[in-house]
């Protein structure tokens, strides 16, 4: 892809940040729509090659889209029907397990503080261990009672909307390309090539981002599972998958994933701090590998933005739209910067405007040709 059609500079940056912030704020207000749309877009990019393959084998686009989206829906139902009752059955024991993990974390903190107190006398004189333990107990109780319950309620409220995702994905698969062509039809001839360049850039940005995210999750999950299994933590695969999915949330996800793995290791090996240290080391190694090797090769390539506005967008996303804002900030900023850059380049090109005016004058001449007496 050639970048000469993209304008850049402080104005483009400012417009990108302003528009993305507005979109993120609007997303926070319409989360019930954003979540299924986001899932539908991920499904679209996963299923699009299958639809193309079916189409190539002589099946019409409508039928191919219906077959693929229908197949995914049936698969989801086949997985959900036995899973939901099992999950409900597990909810009580899940709460118990969480309590056990928090207790394991508390024990780890107490042991670490006791070791520190034995090394540094002033901490013992401050009764540091008891004070921190009391604060941790308070925090743990509040988290269980308020934060966790609220989080689960919010997640449950999104569930019906999530069921919309395959339905939306079907329409994207069936009509997405035709819809783009229809929009291109409405674009004046002078701006046509720039517009198809913009469509392609937007498509590439979104596709690379979401496909990169999926690849990243698979690689991360495999690495975490392998690492935890080697350390000897049970449930390595489940923990690995959850940690990999949490990594989709920039900044916050990494911290949550690390805490989860540390708690699991501390609970299972309360008398062996070296297992916890090994788990932390493994987690940090994977994150390091992720940030500097895997991510630049997958997700990083899709967002063609300078690191400064990228970090700024993450902070703005988190502030105006919370966790969904953190997840959406980068792909949204990538798409908006492409659109703003292309429109900026069109505005800056007087030749294109002259050609458009010339086309309009030709059209006017033709329309008025038989009006002269």
């Amino acid at each position, binding site marked *: *892809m*050639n970048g*000469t*059609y993209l304008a850049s500079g402080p104005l483009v940056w400012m417009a990108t940040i302003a528009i993305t912030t507005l979109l993120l704020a609007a997303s926070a207000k319409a989360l019930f729509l954003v979540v299924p749309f986001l899932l539908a877009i991920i499904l679209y990019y996963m299923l699009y*090659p299958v639809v*193309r*393959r079916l*189409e*190539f*084998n*002589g099946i019409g*686009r409508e039928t191919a889209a219906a077959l693929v989206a229908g197949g995914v829906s049936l698969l989801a139902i086949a997985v959900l029907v036995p899973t939901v009752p099992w999950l409900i059955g597990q909810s009580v024991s899940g709460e118990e397990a969480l309590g056990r993990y928090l207790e394991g974390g508390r024990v780890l903190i107490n042991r670490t503080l006791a070791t520190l107190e034995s090394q540094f006398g002033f901490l013992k004189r401050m009764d540091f261990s008891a004070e921190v333990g009391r604060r941790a107990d308070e925090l743990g109780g509040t988290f269980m009672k308020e934060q966790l319950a609220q989080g689960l309620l919010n997640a449950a409220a999104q569930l019906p909307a999530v069921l919309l995702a395959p339905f939306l994905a079907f329409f994207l698969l069936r*009509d997405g*390309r*035709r*819809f783009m*062509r*229809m929009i*291109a*039809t409405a674009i004046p*001839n*002078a701006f*046509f*090539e*720039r517009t*198809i*360049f913009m*469509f*392609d850039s937007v*498509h*590439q940005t979104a596709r690379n981002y979401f496909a990169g995210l999926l690849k990243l999750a698979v690689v991360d999950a495999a690495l975490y599972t392998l690492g935890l299994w080697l350390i000897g933590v049970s449930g390595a695969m489940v923990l690995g998958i959850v940690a990999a999915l949490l990594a989709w949330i920039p900044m916050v996800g990494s911290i949550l994933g690390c805490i989860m793995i540390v708690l699991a290791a501390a609970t299972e090996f309360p008398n062996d701090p070296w297992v916890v240290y090994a788990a932390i080391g493994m987690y940090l190694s994977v994150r390091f590998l992720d940030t500097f090797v895997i991510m630049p090769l997958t997700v990083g390539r899709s967002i063609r933005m300078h690191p400064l506005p990228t970090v700024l967008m993450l902070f703005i996303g988190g502030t105006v739209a919370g966790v969904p804002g953190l997840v959406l900030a980068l792909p949204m900023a990538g798409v908006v910067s492409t659109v703003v850059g292309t429109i900026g380049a069109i505005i800056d090109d007087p*030749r294109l405007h002259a*050609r458009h005016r*010339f*086309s309009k004058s*030709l*059209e006017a001449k*033709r329309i008025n040709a038989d009006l002269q007496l």
Partner: protein
Amino acid sequence: MFSFLKRQSEQSRIGQIQRLGLFATLQPKELRVINGLLHERRYLKGEIVFDQGEEGQALYIVFGGRVLICRQGEPETGRIAEVAEGSMFGELALLDGSPRSAQARAAEDCLLAALSRADFNGLVETHAVVASKIALQLARALGQKLREHFVAMDARPL
């Protein structure tokens, strides 16, 4: 409700595409894939399709009318070629985004179909056989043009 999105006269368009040298080796189902990628554009007589020096994004097929290829801003004195119905121009844009080597203007009211480089690149990923057939035909066409150029310059090809 979505009737406005329905495909129109697909069969007649596929027939026209099939007659083009670039797509001559494609099977009917492969032609359907190509047809799904084309953008139909209408140009009035005298209207500019693209300028010399502009970054090429698409190849154009003439479905109706004629297109003049000329030096920038010299439709009379800088005439290079005229592309008739059933032919194409701007095919180098499929290979890269290098600047257009000449200006293209509608010599009369035209109906064109554009195949973008982005769509062709997508074809390379999803339908490699179709893309390779087109690329081979493109290479043949360019080779032919190169030979004609050498003959015109009264020089021997390398």
